[in-house]
């Protein structure tokens, strides 16, 4: 039934704007496809994200497009957000989503996931958390980690821009040591929180640190993380999506910044638990990866 | 003149079973046809630290809740309530009403001359007795002290029958009740001690019954009159 919520009744097709008809006819819903959805379809198909008000050239906006293109089954996926720049995109995602409060995203997602499992025992509904580094690692750290400890079957994606961007550029726990931001006028005094490692030791079966520079790599990680969360347990993705505004780059320089990160501070890190490893092999065999 | 309702305060030490006793007292009174309410003191009680519970019994609906400030009956479960001031209320008889009753579990008289005068002026009768020793004699364990105290209470009241008390005790130990972790542990210790639940209940009943008789006899001796109206039909 989930895909039916996008089907426009014939009586109203003539009055509906194109973007809505497109969503029904031209988006890559998993149910309509044999092959896994992916980044390659972005140019030809209707995207799940409509126009939003992030800064021009924001790497977060681009990375969200990759994430949405890679959801294994968007029509059965709920995304939980938190306060921050990302929340300016959320109303425009063509899925059921929740904003809630600043920092409580993994708690809300835990409740949603458990109830969806209870209400739909015969369906597979994915719950994904997508929030910034302030929400995930500072104000919401307790709820992030506790959801890992409890082995909640959700995927947590942190768009790590190393700063509180929406509030105007303040230091976060994910800011690099020495960086001067507001509230750290003489530079940050402690190291960047190694959240991907905390995720591993806190029980995540899949934990990745990467940048948003390579769309395919992002899509692959998203897909693997969600599949592992379905069957095995919590998964975590830390994706560097720099705030070009706060580090003084122009709209076309975000990609270069991420590429530089790939070689240095955001060198690819991946932890996969043995159970997850085995499960992913199985997925590959079955062609769902 | 007998009253339409009375309030009972039970200062004790954590682990003595005063909360359980108040619970059973109210259940027994309810069985007898009274309105009855029981509650513990609302604190972070620990074993051997002060602990207090309350029961209210009447022939009219009982609205009053919480700590009993003006009791008709005060039951002291442990000498340390008086000697070490392990009590929420000082002195232990604070607020006691005229013609009231104090029951003290102690092997010696703990009242000062001043205490005695205050209580005499209010015509409050005092029964001091070693109910712990009594429990050991009757049930073979000091854990039945609360049953002895309970029996003493009803012996003094005279209007709640032994079958109703029996009902109250059985209800408490046969049904599943919510209890704090400490109480639940003690429940299981008691159960282990008696091996069989019915054995435990019988010993408790016997202890309460013997204390009932003893106190009823004492009331006659000292001229303690009926305090609470008989329950309505």
């Amino acid at each position: 039934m989930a895909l039916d919520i996008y089907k426009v009744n014939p009586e109203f097709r003539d009055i509906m704007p194109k973007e809505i008809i497109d969503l029904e006819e031209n988006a890559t819903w998993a149910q309509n496809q044999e092959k896994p959805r992916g980044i390659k379809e972005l140019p030809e198909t209707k995207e799940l994200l409509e126009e939003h008000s992030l800064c021009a050239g924001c790497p977060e906006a681009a990375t969200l497009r990759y994430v949405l293109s890679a959801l294994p089954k968007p029509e059965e996926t709920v995304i939980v957000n938190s306060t921050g720049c990302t929340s300016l995109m959320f109303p425009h995602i063509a899925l059921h989503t929740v904003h809630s409060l600043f920092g409580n995203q993994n708690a809300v997602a835990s409740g949603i996931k458990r109830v969806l499992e209870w209400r739909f025992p015969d369906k597979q509904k994915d719950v994904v958390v997508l929030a910034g580094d302030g929400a995930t690692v500072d104000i919401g750290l307790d709820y992030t980690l506790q959801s890992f400890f409890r082995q909640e079957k959700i995927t947590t994606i942190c768009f790590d821009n190393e700063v509180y961007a929406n509030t105007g550029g303040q230091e976060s726990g994910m800011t690099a040591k020495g960086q001067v931001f507001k509230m750290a006028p003489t530079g940050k005094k402690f190291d960047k929180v190694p959240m991907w490692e905390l995720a591993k030791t806190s029980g995540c079966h899949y934990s990745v640190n990467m940048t948003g520079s390579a769309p395919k790599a992002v899509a692959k990680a998203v897909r693997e993380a969600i599949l592992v969360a379905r069957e095995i347990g919590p998964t975590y993705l830390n994706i560097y999506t720099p705030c070009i505004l706060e580090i003084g780059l122009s709209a076309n320089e975000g990609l270069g910044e991420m590429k530089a990160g790939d070689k240095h501070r955001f060198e690819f890190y991946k932890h996969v638990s043995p159970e997850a490893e085995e499960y992913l092999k199985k997925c590959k065999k079955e062609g769902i990866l | 003149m007998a009253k339409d309702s009375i309030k009972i305060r039970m200062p004790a030490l954590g682990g003595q079973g005063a909360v359980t006793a108040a619970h059973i007292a109210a259940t027994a009174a309810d069985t007898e046809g009274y309105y009855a309410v029981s509650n513990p003191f609302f604190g972070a009680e620990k074993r051997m630290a002060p602990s207090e519970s309350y029961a209210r019994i009447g022939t009219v609906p009982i609205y009053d809740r919480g700590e009993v400030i003006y009791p008709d009956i005060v039951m002291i479960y442990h000498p340390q309530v008086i000697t070490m001031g392990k009590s929420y209320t000082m002195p232990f008889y604070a607020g006691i009403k005229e013609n009231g009753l104090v029951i003290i579990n102690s092997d010696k008289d703990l009242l000062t001359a001043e205490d005695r005068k205050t209580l005499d002026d209010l015509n409050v009768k005092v029964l001091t007795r070693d109910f712990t020793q009594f429990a050991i004699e009757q049930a073979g364990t000091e854990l039945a002290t609360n049953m002895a105290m309970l029996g003493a209470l009803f012996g003094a009241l005279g209007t709640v029958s032994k079958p109703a008390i029996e009902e109250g005790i059985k209800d408490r130990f046969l049904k599943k009740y919510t209890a704090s972790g400490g109480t639940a542990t003690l429940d299981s210790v008691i159960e282990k001690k008696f091996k069989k639940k019915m054995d435990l209940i019988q010993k408790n009943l016997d202890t309460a019954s013997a204390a009932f008789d003893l106190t009823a006899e004492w009331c006659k001796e000292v001229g303690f009159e009926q305090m609470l109206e008989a329950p309505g039909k």
Partner: protein
Amino acid sequence: MANQGPAYYSPYPTATYEGNITPPEGKALLLEDVVDEEVAMRECARVMLTSENATIFPGPQVLYGWNEEAKKKATLIKEIAEVLEAKMIPMYDYRPKYPKIDPEVEINPNHPNLTIWHNNIKAAIFVGVHCHYANVALKIVRSETDCYTIAICGLSGHEDAMATLRDQHTEELARFIEIAKEVKAELGK
């Protein structure tokens, strides 16, 4: 554009603060009066047939074919539009749209007044809109426009509309069509 001034920035007073709430089961609400459903249906039809640019705003619950009732309702609503000679402008989702809506072709609950102003709509039916967003929109509309609003609701109705019908399912919509046809004939249209 309707009158606007400091008092109109807030949609206060809402109907509940004037003492009006949703009608009891089996009844309808016309302004502050609880009336029989048929009385309200007649009045709704009359207003729609006699007001400038009467428009129906179908919401997501009827726009999409997510269950059998929605599919049947879609057919009936189309017929209502034909009988009432009303235009249809969809409220297809509730997002605060960026950068702006096109008031010719859509209505958005966050600023429904824009569509009403732009199209000079003097009477409108909200149908299939989730109650919360219907109420958010109706409160704005009642304070910022002079549009006569009608809420045809599958649940408990909407006191912030000028007229509301509650528990409206396919049977009730069919009955409304019949009544609208009668009223239309009476009006000599």
